[in-house]
Protein backbone atom coordinates (compact mmCIF):
# COMPACT_ATOMS: atom_id res chain seq x y z
CA UNK A 1 0.00 0.00 0.00
CA UNK A 2 1.22 3.46 -0.66
CA UNK A 3 0.03 6.76 0.64
CA UNK A 4 0.43 10.21 -0.77
CA UNK A 5 -0.60 12.89 1.66
CA UNK A 6 -1.72 16.36 0.92
CA UNK A 7 1.74 17.63 1.70
CA UNK A 8 4.64 16.16 -0.17
CA UNK A 9 6.72 13.64 1.74
CA UNK A 10 10.07 14.40 0.18
CA UNK A 11 13.52 15.43 1.29
CA UNK A 12 13.58 19.17 0.59
CA UNK A 13 17.31 19.39 0.31
CA UNK A 14 17.74 16.71 -2.31
CA UNK A 15 16.95 17.13 -5.99
CA UNK A 16 13.92 15.51 -7.58
CA UNK A 17 16.11 12.85 -9.14
CA UNK A 18 18.02 12.17 -5.91
CA UNK A 19 14.77 11.78 -4.02
CA UNK A 20 13.40 9.24 -6.47
CA UNK A 21 16.68 7.37 -6.59
CA UNK A 22 16.78 7.18 -2.80
CA UNK A 23 13.25 5.77 -2.67
CA UNK A 24 14.01 3.21 -5.37
CA UNK A 25 17.20 2.13 -3.61
CA UNK A 26 15.36 1.89 -0.29
CA UNK A 27 12.72 -0.17 -2.04
CA UNK A 28 15.49 -2.70 -2.57
CA UNK A 29 16.64 -2.17 -6.15
CA UNK A 30 20.34 -2.25 -6.93
CA UNK A 31 21.80 0.94 -8.37
CA UNK A 32 21.43 0.01 -12.08
CA UNK A 33 17.78 -0.87 -12.08
CA UNK A 34 16.98 1.89 -9.59
CA UNK A 35 18.42 4.40 -12.07
CA UNK A 36 16.36 2.94 -14.93
CA UNK A 37 13.18 3.06 -12.84
CA UNK A 38 13.86 6.66 -11.88
CA UNK A 39 14.47 7.66 -15.50
CA UNK A 40 11.16 6.03 -16.41
CA UNK A 41 9.32 7.94 -13.71
CA UNK A 42 11.03 11.20 -14.67
CA UNK A 43 9.77 10.77 -18.25
CA UNK A 44 6.34 9.74 -17.20
CA UNK A 45 5.78 12.65 -14.84
CA UNK A 46 7.50 15.26 -17.02
CA UNK A 47 10.08 15.88 -14.33
CA UNK A 48 12.98 16.23 -16.75
CA UNK A 49 13.19 20.01 -16.77
CA UNK A 50 13.55 20.28 -13.00
CA UNK A 51 15.12 16.93 -12.19
CA UNK A 52 18.30 18.49 -10.83
CA UNK A 53 16.62 21.25 -8.83
CA UNK A 54 16.30 20.90 -5.09
CA UNK A 55 12.78 19.88 -4.20
CA UNK A 56 12.42 22.89 -1.90
CA UNK A 57 12.89 25.26 -4.82
CA UNK A 58 10.40 23.80 -7.31
CA UNK A 59 6.74 24.85 -7.67
CA UNK A 60 3.91 23.17 -5.80
CA UNK A 61 2.71 21.34 -8.88
CA UNK A 62 6.15 20.04 -9.69
CA UNK A 63 6.61 18.90 -6.11
CA UNK A 64 3.36 17.03 -6.30
CA UNK A 65 4.49 15.21 -9.39
CA UNK A 66 7.73 14.16 -7.73
CA UNK A 67 5.75 13.06 -4.71
CA UNK A 68 3.38 10.97 -6.78
CA UNK A 69 6.30 9.48 -8.71
CA UNK A 70 7.94 8.57 -5.41
CA UNK A 71 4.82 6.81 -4.23
CA UNK A 72 4.86 4.68 -7.38
CA UNK A 73 8.34 3.39 -6.66
CA UNK A 74 6.70 1.19 -4.08
CA UNK A 75 4.52 -0.51 -6.75
CA UNK A 76 1.48 -0.37 -4.57
CA UNK A 77 -1.57 -2.57 -5.03
CA UNK A 78 -3.60 0.02 -3.17
CA UNK A 79 -2.79 3.69 -3.58
CA UNK A 80 -4.30 6.33 -1.32
CA UNK A 81 -4.18 9.88 -2.57
CA UNK A 82 -5.27 12.76 -0.40
CA UNK A 83 -6.30 15.65 -2.64
CA UNK A 84 -3.63 14.92 -5.23
CA UNK A 85 -4.30 17.96 -7.40
CA UNK A 86 -5.04 20.62 -4.81
CA UNK A 87 -3.30 23.80 -5.86
CA UNK A 88 -1.88 22.34 -9.05
CA UNK A 89 -1.55 24.18 -12.32
CA UNK A 90 -3.68 22.75 -15.16
CA UNK A 91 -0.74 21.04 -16.81
CA UNK A 92 0.35 19.25 -13.65
CA UNK A 93 -3.24 18.26 -13.05
CA UNK A 94 -3.43 16.67 -16.49
CA UNK A 95 -0.23 14.75 -15.83
CA UNK A 96 -1.54 13.52 -12.49
CA UNK A 97 -4.91 12.55 -13.93
CA UNK A 98 -3.50 10.64 -16.85
CA UNK A 99 -1.10 8.79 -14.58
CA UNK A 100 -3.86 7.88 -12.18
CA UNK A 101 -5.96 6.53 -15.06
CA UNK A 102 -3.07 4.42 -16.29
CA UNK A 103 -2.47 3.03 -12.85
CA UNK A 104 -6.08 2.08 -12.44
CA UNK A 105 -6.02 0.42 -15.85
CA UNK A 106 -2.97 -1.50 -14.75
CA UNK A 107 -4.95 -2.89 -11.83
CA UNK A 108 -4.09 -0.61 -8.93
CA UNK A 109 -6.91 0.05 -6.50
CA UNK A 110 -7.15 3.74 -5.85
CA UNK A 111 -8.67 5.65 -2.96
CA UNK A 112 -8.82 9.33 -3.67
CA UNK A 113 -10.16 12.21 -1.65
CA UNK A 114 -10.86 15.45 -3.42
CA UNK A 115 -12.73 18.70 -3.12
CA UNK A 116 -13.12 18.86 -6.89
CA UNK A 117 -16.15 16.89 -7.94
CA UNK A 118 -15.03 17.28 -11.51
CA UNK A 119 -11.97 15.27 -10.54
CA UNK A 120 -14.02 12.55 -8.88
CA UNK A 121 -16.20 12.41 -11.98
CA UNK A 122 -13.20 12.08 -14.24
CA UNK A 123 -11.36 9.43 -12.24
CA UNK A 124 -13.65 7.43 -10.04
CA UNK A 125 -15.75 4.33 -10.61
CA UNK A 126 -17.47 4.73 -7.30
CA UNK A 127 -18.03 7.97 -5.43
CA UNK A 128 -18.97 8.58 -1.83
CA UNK A 129 -20.14 12.13 -1.17
CA UNK A 130 -19.38 13.33 2.32
CA UNK A 131 -20.84 16.51 3.76
CA UNK A 132 -19.96 17.63 7.28
CA UNK A 133 -18.57 14.19 8.04
CA UNK A 134 -21.74 12.41 6.97
CA UNK A 135 -22.10 10.20 3.92
CA UNK A 136 -24.83 11.84 1.87
CA UNK A 137 -24.71 9.64 -1.20
CA UNK A 138 -22.76 6.86 -2.82
CA UNK A 139 -22.75 5.37 -6.26
CA UNK A 140 -21.29 5.64 -9.70
CA UNK A 141 -21.03 9.15 -11.17
CA UNK A 142 -24.00 8.59 -13.47
CA UNK A 143 -26.14 7.18 -10.66
CA UNK A 144 -25.46 10.27 -8.59
CA UNK A 145 -26.23 12.62 -11.43
CA UNK A 146 -29.41 10.81 -12.45
CA UNK A 147 -30.72 11.35 -8.92
CA UNK A 148 -31.11 15.02 -9.65
CA UNK A 149 -32.50 15.18 -13.11
CA UNK A 150 -31.69 14.79 -16.74
CA UNK A 151 -29.75 16.64 -19.29
CA UNK A 152 -30.75 20.06 -20.49
CA UNK A 153 -29.96 22.69 -23.07
CA UNK A 154 -28.42 25.86 -21.66
CA UNK A 155 -28.70 29.07 -23.64
CA UNK A 156 -26.59 31.99 -22.46
CA UNK A 157 -27.57 35.46 -23.65
CA UNK A 158 -25.09 38.30 -24.04
CA UNK A 159 -27.14 40.65 -21.83
CA UNK A 160 -30.38 40.96 -19.87
CA UNK A 161 -32.45 42.03 -22.86
CA UNK A 162 -31.20 39.04 -24.83
CA UNK A 163 -32.29 36.81 -21.97
CA UNK A 164 -35.80 38.25 -22.13
CA UNK A 165 -35.95 37.59 -25.87
CA UNK A 166 -34.73 34.04 -25.37
CA UNK A 167 -37.31 33.36 -22.67
CA UNK A 168 -40.05 34.71 -24.91
CA UNK A 169 -38.97 32.55 -27.79
CA UNK A 170 -38.66 29.34 -25.78
CA UNK A 171 -41.37 29.50 -23.14
CA UNK A 172 -44.08 28.69 -25.68
CA UNK A 173 -42.72 25.23 -26.37
CA UNK A 174 -40.51 24.39 -23.37
CA UNK A 175 -40.46 24.44 -19.61
CA UNK A 176 -37.88 27.15 -18.99
CA UNK A 177 -35.69 27.82 -15.97
CA UNK A 178 -33.96 31.20 -15.95
CA UNK A 179 -30.88 32.12 -14.00
CA UNK A 180 -30.50 35.85 -14.50
CA UNK A 181 -27.17 36.02 -12.71
CA UNK A 182 -25.59 33.75 -15.22
CA UNK A 183 -27.83 35.00 -18.04
CA UNK A 184 -28.72 31.38 -18.63
CA UNK A 185 -31.97 29.90 -19.84
CA UNK A 186 -32.27 26.13 -19.34
CA UNK A 187 -34.73 23.74 -20.89
CA UNK A 188 -34.95 19.99 -20.26
CA UNK A 189 -33.52 17.94 -23.09
CA UNK A 190 -34.50 14.29 -22.77
CA UNK A 191 -34.09 13.77 -26.51
CA UNK A 192 -30.52 14.95 -26.90
CA UNK A 193 -29.86 16.46 -30.29
CA UNK A 194 -33.54 16.66 -31.24
CA UNK A 195 -34.15 19.03 -28.35
CA UNK A 196 -31.03 20.99 -29.13
CA UNK A 197 -32.19 21.37 -32.71
CA UNK A 198 -35.68 22.41 -31.58
CA UNK A 199 -34.16 25.06 -29.31
CA UNK A 200 -31.92 26.44 -32.03
CA UNK A 201 -34.74 26.61 -34.55
CA UNK A 202 -37.03 28.32 -32.01
CA UNK A 203 -34.32 30.91 -31.48
CA UNK A 204 -33.51 31.53 -35.11
CA UNK A 205 -35.02 34.76 -36.35
CA UNK A 206 -35.63 36.08 -32.82
CA UNK A 207 -32.59 38.32 -33.08
CA UNK A 208 -31.30 37.67 -29.54
CA UNK A 209 -27.51 37.80 -29.21
CA UNK A 210 -26.35 34.50 -27.82
CA UNK A 211 -23.06 33.80 -26.08
CA UNK A 212 -23.29 30.08 -25.84
CA UNK A 213 -25.69 27.27 -26.48
CA UNK A 214 -24.95 23.80 -25.18
CA UNK A 215 -26.34 20.40 -24.30
CA UNK A 216 -25.41 19.68 -20.68
CA UNK A 217 -25.66 16.86 -18.24
CA UNK A 218 -25.98 17.76 -14.60
CA UNK A 219 -22.53 17.93 -13.04
CA UNK A 220 -21.54 16.27 -9.81
CA UNK A 221 -21.48 19.76 -8.34
CA UNK A 222 -25.19 20.04 -9.07
CA UNK A 223 -25.69 16.60 -7.52
CA UNK A 224 -23.72 17.51 -4.42
CA UNK A 225 -25.64 20.73 -3.89
CA UNK A 226 -28.96 19.01 -4.44
CA UNK A 227 -28.11 16.11 -2.16
CA UNK A 228 -26.79 18.24 0.66
CA UNK A 229 -29.88 20.42 0.47
CA UNK A 230 -27.92 23.52 -0.37
CA UNK A 231 -29.10 25.88 -3.05
CA UNK A 232 -26.51 27.13 -5.51
CA UNK A 233 -25.24 30.49 -4.38
CA UNK A 234 -26.64 32.43 -7.30
CA UNK A 235 -30.17 31.27 -6.37
CA UNK A 236 -29.70 31.69 -2.69
CA UNK A 237 -28.59 35.28 -2.89
CA UNK A 238 -31.34 36.44 -5.13
CA UNK A 239 -34.31 34.15 -4.83
CA UNK A 240 -36.47 36.62 -6.70
CA UNK A 241 -34.51 35.92 -9.83
CA UNK A 242 -35.55 32.31 -9.86
CA UNK A 243 -38.35 31.86 -12.30
CA UNK A 244 -40.19 28.90 -13.57
CA UNK A 245 -42.21 29.78 -16.61
CA UNK A 246 -45.01 27.38 -17.43
Amino acid sequence: MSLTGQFAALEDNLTAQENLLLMARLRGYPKGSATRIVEGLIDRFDIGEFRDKLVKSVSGGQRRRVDLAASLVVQPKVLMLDEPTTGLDPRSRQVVWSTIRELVQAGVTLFLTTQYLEEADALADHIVLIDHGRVVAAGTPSELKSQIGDQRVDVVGVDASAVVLIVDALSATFQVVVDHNRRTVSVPAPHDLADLAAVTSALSGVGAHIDEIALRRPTLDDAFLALTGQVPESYENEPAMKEVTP
Partner: protein
Amino acid sequence: MTMTLASMTRPGDEPLPRRPGSLRRFLRETGLLIVRGLQTIPRVPQRLSDVTIQPLVFTLLFLYVFGSAIHIKGMSYQNYLLPGLLGQSLAFGVIGAGVATATDFNTGVIDRFRSLPVTRLSVISSQVIGQILEQILGIVIVAGMGLALGWRPHMSPFGFVEFLLLMLLGLSAFTWFGVLLGMIVKSSDAMQGIGFAIVFPLSFLAGTFVPIAGLKLIPRTIGDWDPLSALVASVRHVTQGTNTTGSWQLAHPVVSMIFWCFLIIAVCVPLALRRFMNSN
Protein backbone atom coordinates in the same frame (compact mmCIF):
# COMPACT_ATOMS: atom_id res chain seq x y z
CA MET B 1 1.46 13.27 -21.84
CA THR B 2 1.11 11.13 -24.90
CA MET B 3 2.84 8.11 -23.45
CA THR B 4 1.01 4.89 -23.07
CA LEU B 5 1.40 2.37 -20.37
CA ALA B 6 3.19 -0.12 -22.57
CA SER B 7 5.93 2.29 -23.58
CA MET B 8 7.00 3.23 -20.09
CA THR B 9 9.51 1.67 -17.80
CA ARG B 10 7.40 0.62 -14.94
CA PRO B 11 8.91 -0.39 -11.67
CA GLY B 12 7.53 -3.86 -12.31
CA ASP B 13 9.74 -4.37 -15.35
CA GLU B 14 12.86 -4.32 -13.26
CA PRO B 15 13.51 -7.52 -11.40
CA LEU B 16 13.44 -6.88 -7.67
CA PRO B 17 16.28 -8.85 -6.15
CA ARG B 18 15.41 -11.35 -3.51
CA ARG B 19 15.32 -9.65 -0.15
CA PRO B 20 18.60 -10.21 1.60
CA GLY B 21 18.80 -11.30 5.21
CA SER B 22 17.57 -8.84 7.78
CA LEU B 23 21.02 -7.80 9.00
CA ARG B 24 22.26 -7.07 5.47
CA ARG B 25 19.07 -5.19 4.69
CA PHE B 26 19.43 -3.19 7.86
CA LEU B 27 23.03 -2.27 7.05
CA ARG B 28 22.21 -1.39 3.44
CA GLU B 29 19.25 0.80 4.35
CA THR B 30 21.11 2.48 7.19
CA GLY B 31 23.94 3.23 4.78
CA LEU B 32 21.60 4.69 2.18
CA LEU B 33 19.93 6.88 4.76
CA ILE B 34 23.23 8.10 6.20
CA VAL B 35 24.36 9.05 2.71
CA ARG B 36 21.08 10.89 2.22
CA GLY B 37 21.77 12.91 5.37
CA LEU B 38 25.32 13.72 4.30
CA GLN B 39 24.14 14.68 0.78
CA THR B 40 21.95 17.41 2.18
CA ILE B 41 24.75 19.08 4.17
CA PRO B 42 26.26 21.08 1.28
CA ARG B 43 22.75 22.36 0.44
CA VAL B 44 22.20 23.81 3.92
CA PRO B 45 25.71 24.41 5.26
CA GLN B 46 24.33 26.75 7.94
CA ARG B 47 22.91 23.70 9.70
CA LEU B 48 26.45 22.73 10.53
CA SER B 49 27.11 26.00 12.33
CA ASP B 50 26.53 24.41 15.73
CA VAL B 51 29.45 22.06 15.19
CA THR B 52 31.71 24.47 13.29
CA ILE B 53 31.33 28.17 14.05
CA GLN B 54 29.92 27.78 17.55
CA PRO B 55 32.78 25.66 18.95
CA LEU B 56 35.31 27.99 17.34
CA VAL B 57 33.69 31.02 18.95
CA PHE B 58 33.38 29.32 22.32
CA THR B 59 37.00 28.22 22.35
CA LEU B 60 38.27 31.67 21.45
CA LEU B 61 35.92 33.52 23.78
CA PHE B 62 36.60 31.46 26.86
CA LEU B 63 40.29 31.13 26.28
CA TYR B 64 40.87 34.84 25.77
CA VAL B 65 38.10 36.43 27.82
CA PHE B 66 37.94 34.21 30.90
CA GLY B 67 41.43 32.83 30.48
CA SER B 68 42.92 36.17 31.38
CA ALA B 69 41.09 36.24 34.73
CA ILE B 70 40.94 32.58 35.75
CA HIS B 71 44.02 30.96 37.19
CA ILE B 72 44.01 27.23 37.83
CA LYS B 73 46.60 25.96 40.25
CA GLY B 74 49.25 23.76 38.68
CA MET B 75 48.17 23.95 35.04
CA SER B 76 47.72 26.35 32.16
CA TYR B 77 44.17 27.51 31.44
CA GLN B 78 44.36 25.88 28.03
CA ASN B 79 44.94 22.52 29.67
CA TYR B 80 42.04 23.11 32.05
CA LEU B 81 39.62 24.57 29.50
CA LEU B 82 40.00 22.23 26.55
CA PRO B 83 38.85 19.02 28.27
CA GLY B 84 35.91 21.08 29.55
CA LEU B 85 35.05 22.30 26.07
CA LEU B 86 35.30 18.75 24.70
CA GLY B 87 32.87 17.59 27.36
CA GLN B 88 30.61 20.52 26.60
CA SER B 89 30.65 19.64 22.89
CA LEU B 90 29.32 16.20 23.77
CA ALA B 91 26.59 17.76 25.88
CA PHE B 92 25.63 20.22 23.16
CA GLY B 93 25.24 17.21 20.88
CA VAL B 94 21.93 16.68 22.68
CA ILE B 95 20.67 19.98 21.30
CA GLY B 96 22.10 19.39 17.84
CA ALA B 97 20.64 15.90 17.54
CA GLY B 98 17.32 17.03 18.97
CA VAL B 99 16.95 19.95 16.61
CA ALA B 100 17.95 17.87 13.60
CA THR B 101 15.54 15.09 14.53
CA ALA B 102 12.64 17.45 15.18
CA THR B 103 13.26 19.15 11.84
CA ASP B 104 13.55 15.86 10.01
CA PHE B 105 10.48 14.30 11.54
CA ASN B 106 8.44 17.33 10.60
CA THR B 107 9.11 17.24 6.88
CA GLY B 108 7.05 14.15 6.15
CA VAL B 109 9.96 12.40 4.47
CA ILE B 110 10.10 10.07 7.45
CA ASP B 111 6.52 9.03 6.69
CA ARG B 112 7.62 8.18 3.20
CA PHE B 113 10.39 5.96 4.55
CA ARG B 114 7.82 4.23 6.67
CA SER B 115 5.64 3.49 3.66
CA LEU B 116 8.59 1.75 2.04
CA PRO B 117 9.55 -1.71 3.15
CA VAL B 118 12.42 -0.30 5.18
CA THR B 119 13.52 -1.64 8.54
CA ARG B 120 12.36 1.02 10.94
CA LEU B 121 15.42 0.58 13.08
CA SER B 122 17.52 1.71 10.11
CA VAL B 123 15.65 5.03 9.89
CA ILE B 124 16.44 5.85 13.47
CA SER B 125 19.96 4.47 13.60
CA SER B 126 20.90 6.41 10.48
CA GLN B 127 19.68 9.50 12.27
CA VAL B 128 21.87 8.70 15.28
CA ILE B 129 24.95 7.82 13.23
CA GLY B 130 24.56 10.89 11.02
CA GLN B 131 24.40 13.08 14.10
CA ILE B 132 27.42 11.38 15.65
CA LEU B 133 29.39 12.06 12.47
CA GLU B 134 28.45 15.73 12.66
CA GLN B 135 29.38 15.96 16.32
CA ILE B 136 32.75 14.34 15.59
CA LEU B 137 33.42 17.18 13.20
CA GLY B 138 32.72 19.64 16.01
CA ILE B 139 34.98 17.79 18.43
CA VAL B 140 37.82 17.66 15.92
CA ILE B 141 37.46 21.40 15.39
CA VAL B 142 37.56 22.12 19.12
CA ALA B 143 40.54 19.82 19.67
CA GLY B 144 42.41 21.22 16.68
CA MET B 145 41.74 24.78 17.77
CA GLY B 146 42.89 23.93 21.28
CA LEU B 147 46.11 22.32 20.11
CA ALA B 148 46.85 25.35 17.96
CA LEU B 149 46.30 27.67 20.91
CA GLY B 150 48.48 25.84 23.39
CA TRP B 151 46.52 22.88 24.74
CA ARG B 152 48.96 20.13 25.66
CA PRO B 153 47.29 16.82 26.53
CA HIS B 154 49.39 14.21 28.36
CA MET B 155 48.27 10.85 27.12
CA SER B 156 49.95 7.52 26.59
CA PRO B 157 48.90 5.63 23.46
CA PHE B 158 46.67 3.57 25.74
CA GLY B 159 45.29 6.77 27.23
CA PHE B 160 44.53 8.07 23.73
CA VAL B 161 42.54 4.97 22.89
CA GLU B 162 40.74 5.29 26.21
CA PHE B 163 39.99 8.93 25.35
CA LEU B 164 38.57 7.99 21.95
CA LEU B 165 36.41 5.22 23.39
CA LEU B 166 35.08 7.48 26.12
CA MET B 167 34.23 10.20 23.63
CA LEU B 168 32.48 7.69 21.39
CA LEU B 169 30.48 6.30 24.29
CA GLY B 170 29.52 9.80 25.38
CA LEU B 171 28.56 10.73 21.83
CA SER B 172 26.33 7.68 21.48
CA ALA B 173 24.58 8.29 24.78
CA PHE B 174 23.99 12.00 24.30
CA THR B 175 22.97 11.64 20.68
CA TRP B 176 20.37 8.97 21.50
CA PHE B 177 19.09 11.26 24.23
CA GLY B 178 18.86 14.14 21.76
CA VAL B 179 17.11 12.02 19.12
CA LEU B 180 14.55 10.89 21.68
CA LEU B 181 13.97 14.47 22.83
CA GLY B 182 13.62 15.64 19.24
CA MET B 183 10.99 12.95 18.59
CA ILE B 184 9.07 13.92 21.71
CA VAL B 185 9.28 17.68 21.33
CA LYS B 186 8.70 17.62 17.55
CA SER B 187 9.49 21.30 17.10
CA SER B 188 12.99 22.48 16.43
CA ASP B 189 12.31 25.84 18.08
CA ALA B 190 11.07 24.21 21.27
CA MET B 191 14.09 21.91 21.15
CA GLN B 192 16.43 24.91 20.94
CA GLY B 193 14.60 26.40 23.92
CA ILE B 194 14.92 23.29 26.04
CA GLY B 195 18.55 22.98 25.07
CA PHE B 196 19.40 26.47 26.15
CA ALA B 197 17.28 26.33 29.30
CA ILE B 198 18.68 23.03 30.59
CA VAL B 199 21.77 21.75 28.80
CA PHE B 200 23.45 25.13 28.59
CA PRO B 201 23.39 25.98 32.33
CA LEU B 202 24.18 22.39 33.34
CA SER B 203 27.20 22.43 31.09
CA PHE B 204 28.42 25.60 32.80
CA LEU B 205 28.02 24.11 36.26
CA ALA B 206 29.96 21.02 35.26
CA GLY B 207 33.42 22.33 36.01
CA THR B 208 33.83 23.21 32.38
CA PHE B 209 35.35 26.66 32.82
CA VAL B 210 36.01 26.95 36.53
CA PRO B 211 36.50 24.31 39.25
CA ILE B 212 33.29 23.12 40.90
CA ALA B 213 34.96 23.22 44.33
CA GLY B 214 35.05 27.01 44.21
CA LEU B 215 31.33 27.44 43.54
CA LYS B 216 28.73 28.50 46.12
CA LEU B 217 26.66 25.84 47.86
CA ILE B 218 23.71 25.43 45.49
CA PRO B 219 25.57 25.50 42.17
CA ARG B 220 28.28 23.36 43.78
CA THR B 221 25.78 20.71 44.82
CA ILE B 222 24.26 20.67 41.33
CA GLY B 223 27.73 20.48 39.82
CA ASP B 224 28.72 17.66 42.14
CA TRP B 225 25.97 15.41 40.80
CA ASP B 226 25.45 16.77 37.29
CA PRO B 227 26.17 13.93 34.85
CA LEU B 228 27.96 16.47 32.69
CA SER B 229 30.45 17.02 35.53
CA ALA B 230 31.41 13.36 35.40
CA LEU B 231 31.81 13.77 31.65
CA VAL B 232 34.08 16.81 31.95
CA ALA B 233 36.07 15.36 34.86
CA SER B 234 36.64 12.10 33.03
CA VAL B 235 37.83 13.81 29.86
CA ARG B 236 40.15 15.94 32.02
CA HIS B 237 41.38 12.86 33.86
CA VAL B 238 42.11 10.96 30.66
CA THR B 239 43.73 13.81 28.75
CA GLN B 240 45.65 15.59 31.50
CA GLY B 241 45.87 12.99 34.24
CA THR B 242 44.36 15.42 36.74
CA ASN B 243 41.99 14.34 39.46
CA THR B 244 38.98 16.37 40.43
CA THR B 245 37.94 16.60 44.06
CA GLY B 246 34.41 16.79 45.31
CA SER B 247 31.62 14.22 45.22
CA TRP B 248 32.16 10.51 44.70
CA GLN B 249 31.39 10.78 41.01
CA LEU B 250 34.03 13.49 40.57
CA ALA B 251 36.61 11.40 42.39
CA HIS B 252 35.79 8.42 40.14
CA PRO B 253 34.94 10.24 36.90
CA VAL B 254 35.59 7.52 34.34
CA VAL B 255 33.52 4.89 36.10
CA SER B 256 30.79 7.45 36.72
CA MET B 257 30.74 8.60 33.16
CA ILE B 258 30.50 5.03 31.87
CA PHE B 259 27.66 4.45 34.32
CA TRP B 260 25.78 7.58 33.21
CA CYS B 261 26.24 6.79 29.52
CA PHE B 262 24.98 3.24 29.88
CA LEU B 263 22.08 4.46 31.96
CA ILE B 264 21.14 7.03 29.30
CA ILE B 265 21.45 4.47 26.52
CA ALA B 266 19.48 1.86 28.44
CA VAL B 267 16.63 4.32 28.97
CA CYS B 268 16.64 6.29 25.73
CA VAL B 269 17.17 3.62 23.09
CA PRO B 270 14.11 1.51 23.95
CA LEU B 271 11.97 4.61 24.45
CA ALA B 272 13.07 6.11 21.15
CA LEU B 273 12.51 2.85 19.31
CA ARG B 274 9.12 2.31 20.86
CA ARG B 275 8.08 5.82 20.05
CA PHE B 276 9.16 5.45 16.45
CA MET B 277 7.54 2.06 15.93
CA ASN B 278 4.22 3.04 17.47
CA SER B 279 3.73 6.56 16.24
CA ASN B 280 1.66 6.93 13.13
